């Protein structure tokens, strides 16, 4: 009896605690200033023209797009558009806009503002305003992301149908279009502010986002304050300050001494210190990127898939991630990262198996083929610089060289200065056998990895220049499929094909780990690397 009541009492206490915890978690405290320590200053704050993460992290909080990425994934959710329809032929997107939203300067957000925000980047300016309140500014810098996402080829026209409806007409069926509309460059800007400030809009951003721009002291800090009228609800924080502290060690010291709340990109060795510090928490996110090793597919030597499979077995990727990424990475089994929709988790990764590699090479008569090609050894190109997806290209190259030696393949490490490396690689020269490179995703759509990296039949700019008709067919179908389920099915199939054919050996996705103070609540790193403060609060 006593035992029973004890159990009841315990259960009651546990339930009370849980409820208490839930209540606490559910009710963020309003107020306070969060100081975010970052490695550098923003270049500018007009989302149309920026290209760097330090600029986008401010834009992410000042501006909104028609569609947004979900909190912790790259799923598309409503933003300034409450809903949208796609025409049966897939060529027209009709967006219904959120009503009653105003920009921070009081300008009404409406269909004309959409036409203005995006039309200003458009080359042929094929747009129709509803009331035509604004003219486009002249003499603008080039909109790098608009161009690199091929928006001019993709988009036929933008038309405001009424005050709250906009229709985008596409030149070709392109399912990733909707994901592009969630990217930073597609943010809605206040037309009055753009016209008022001209070129200086980059230092005086006005959007509809959860925070308003207050002040920018160059190379020192940018201050934002809560937008009390935000359509998504007032953010709990009163202010957010983004401080530039270029040196990683000093930035971490600033966190340790309590002057900043979050420390971006600490040195790997400081992460361990942070882990053992009771005042700090760590926030983790797999980066939306891939570091890979690929083959010169224009050479006869690399046509046999058994040889490529052998290389996948020969390379010890776990050891590379442990020793060169310092654990700040995960071994990649697919080309797209695991936090992206369409990821095929059923793929069995190639195990590190030197014996199997040797057997496959023998079976495919690799050494005979090498000799026939007049070569004694192969070349392994490795980049001379650290990239977001690979902390040290040369060291990874050396590890691979040793792995290949173990299976009887002599590889010579080759590198050039970065600009030359990229330029030479593009031409797929005869003297290049293997090369390392990687990719950081833009819009969270699998097409942005699988087409950009591997569909050599579609585009001469594809770095791998792998030309496989079946693959090309799948990617094209996936681009044009309107149902997401169908696209997922096709991308899963594409990943199976990559796994079987090994046009590249997936090495690793880097992992982002940032320390922050215990008092910071609900801060999440997003797969697209955007920094959103809307729901963050301080204990």
């Amino acid at each position, binding site marked *: 009896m006593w035992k029973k009541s004890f159990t009841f009492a315990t259960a009651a206490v546990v339930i009370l605690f849980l409820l208490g915890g839930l209540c606490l978690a559910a009710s963020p405290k309003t107020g306070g200033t969060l100081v975010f320590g970052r490695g550098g200053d923003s270049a500018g704050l007009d989302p149309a023209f920026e290209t760097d993460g330090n600029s986008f992290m401010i834009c992410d909080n000042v501006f909104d797009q028609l569609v947004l990425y979900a909190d912790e994934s790259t799923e598309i959710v409503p933003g300034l558009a409450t809903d949208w329809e796609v025409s049966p032929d897939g060529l027209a997107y009709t967006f219904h806009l959120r009503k009653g939203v105003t920009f921070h300067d009081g300008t009404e957000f409406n269909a004309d503002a959409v036409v203005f925000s995006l039309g200003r980047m458009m080359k042929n300016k094929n747009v129709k305003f509803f009331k035509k309140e604004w003219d486009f500014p002249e003499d603008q810098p080039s909109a790098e992301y608009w*161009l690199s996402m091929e928006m001019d080829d993709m988009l036929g026209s933008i038309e405001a149908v009424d005050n709250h409806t906009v229709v985008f007409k596409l030149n070709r069926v392109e399912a990733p279009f909707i994901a592009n509309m969630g990217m930073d460059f597609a943010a809605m800007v206040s037309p009055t502010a753009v016209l008022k400030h001209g070129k200086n809009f980059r230092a005086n951003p006005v959007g509809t986002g959860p925070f308003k721009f207050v002040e920018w002291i*160059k190379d020192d800090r940018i201050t934002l304050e809560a937008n009390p009228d935000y359509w998504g609800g007032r953010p709990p924080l009163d202010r957010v300050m983004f401080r530039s502290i270029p040196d990683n060690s*000093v930035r971490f*010291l600033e966190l340790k001494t309590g002057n900043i709340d979050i420390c971006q990109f600490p040195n790997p060795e400081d992460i361990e210190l942070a882990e053992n510090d009771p005042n700090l928490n760590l926030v983790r996110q797999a980066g939306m990127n891939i570091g890979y090793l690929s083959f010169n597919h224009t050479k006869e030597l690399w046509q046999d898939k058994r040889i490529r499979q052998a290389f996948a077995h020969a390379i010890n990727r776990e050891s590379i991630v442990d020793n060169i990424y310092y654990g700040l990475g995960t071994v990649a089994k697919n080309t797209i990262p695991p936090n992206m929709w369409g990821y095929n988790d059923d793929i069995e990764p190639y195990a590190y198996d030197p014996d199997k590699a040797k057997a496959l090479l023998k079976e495919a008569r690799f050494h005979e083929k090498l000799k026939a090609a007049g070569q004694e050894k192969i070349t392994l190109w490795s980049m001379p610089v650290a990239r977001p997806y690979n902390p040290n290209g040369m060291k990874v190259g050396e590890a691979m060289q040793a792995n290949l030696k173990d299976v009887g393949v002599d590889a010579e490490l080759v590198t050039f200065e970065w600009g030359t*490396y*990229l330029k030479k690689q593009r031409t797929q020269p005869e003297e290049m056998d293997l090369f390392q490179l990687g990719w*950081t995703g833009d819009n969270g759509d699998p097409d942005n990895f699988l087409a950009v990296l591997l569909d050599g039949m579609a585009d001469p700019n594809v770095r791998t220049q792998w030309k496989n008709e079946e693959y090309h067919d799948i990617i094209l179908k996936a681009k044009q499929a309107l149902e997401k389920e169908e696209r997922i099915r096709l991308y899963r199939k594409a990943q199976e094909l990559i796994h079987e054919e090994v046009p590249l050996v997936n090495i690793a996705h880097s992992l982002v780990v940032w320390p922050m103070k215990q008092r910071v609540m609900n801060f999440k790193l997003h797969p697209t690397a955007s920094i959103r403060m809307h729901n963050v609060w301080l204990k």
Partner: protein
Amino acid sequence: MKKFVLHRVLSLIPTLLGISLLVFLMIQLIPGDPAEMMLGERASESALAELRERLGLDQPIYVQYGRFMGRLLQGDLGRALRTNEKITTEIFERFPATVELSLAAILIATALGMFAGIISATRQYSIFDYVSMVVSLIGVSMPIFWLGLVLMIIFSVNLGLVPLSGRLSYNIELEVVTNLYVLDSIITHNWAAFKDAVWHLILPAFTLSTIPMATISRITRSSMLEVLRQDYIRTARAKGLSLWVVHYKHALKNAMIPIITVVGLQFGILLGGAILTETIFAWPGIGLWILNGVYARDFNAVQGGTMFIATVFVTINLVVDILYAWVNPRIKVN
């Protein structure tokens, strides 16, 4: 004197021309393709061609140099690629921070350096002399980033005496007039900001002062020693003047000439942007800005920034030369 000044000013022209050529050639000497390097993995052929055109890299070298010089003569350093902002604007936004830091550093360096040098010279071969010369040797060879971090850990993290980095605390408001925060706080009678700005200045200025301080103390010592051995010093002593008067009135005045030169040159170097100190202390000056230009592969910014710094340096040199001639009238054009 007039002739001397005119001669020195005119000699600036070939110097600056030479610098402009060097600065221009920098971008040409970089191996590989700057456009390719700037666009990275995502570059398509068309984007590359567009960027080369925008940078003028598709033109022959002499056309590029002609354009560069044409703009330069109008005082236009071009636009930074990263921000599309005028480079002159970017520089003038940041230069005051560097001036403030350099002034503080050179003040510390001159005061402490001269003090140590004079004492060493007047008490040659004493313990103080040995210690101060060893310390100054260490000062010259100490890596700034290491020293900066050590000072930070001792004085900011452990003792909590001074702030770690930055120019002003978040909670301090300051109306910016000249962008020299210490001066601005005095002008606006904002004593809270004054204290905060000086507090933020101490550590980076001290770190930055170590190398010039060491140089100044060594030059002061040797210059003083040389003067102290002169006949007129012995005469002054013989006619019964006190040591203090002899050292500080008679000897120091004549020993000052090389010291002025060194202080001027060191100040010129400091104004060139203390890249390491500014980086460690998150000091938003010109050195940090150029470094960011290098990281962002912003060739225009690096070119423009270097040109600006070189001009500042030769101008300071000119001023020092003129000052030198003024202090020592024996100096003539030849």
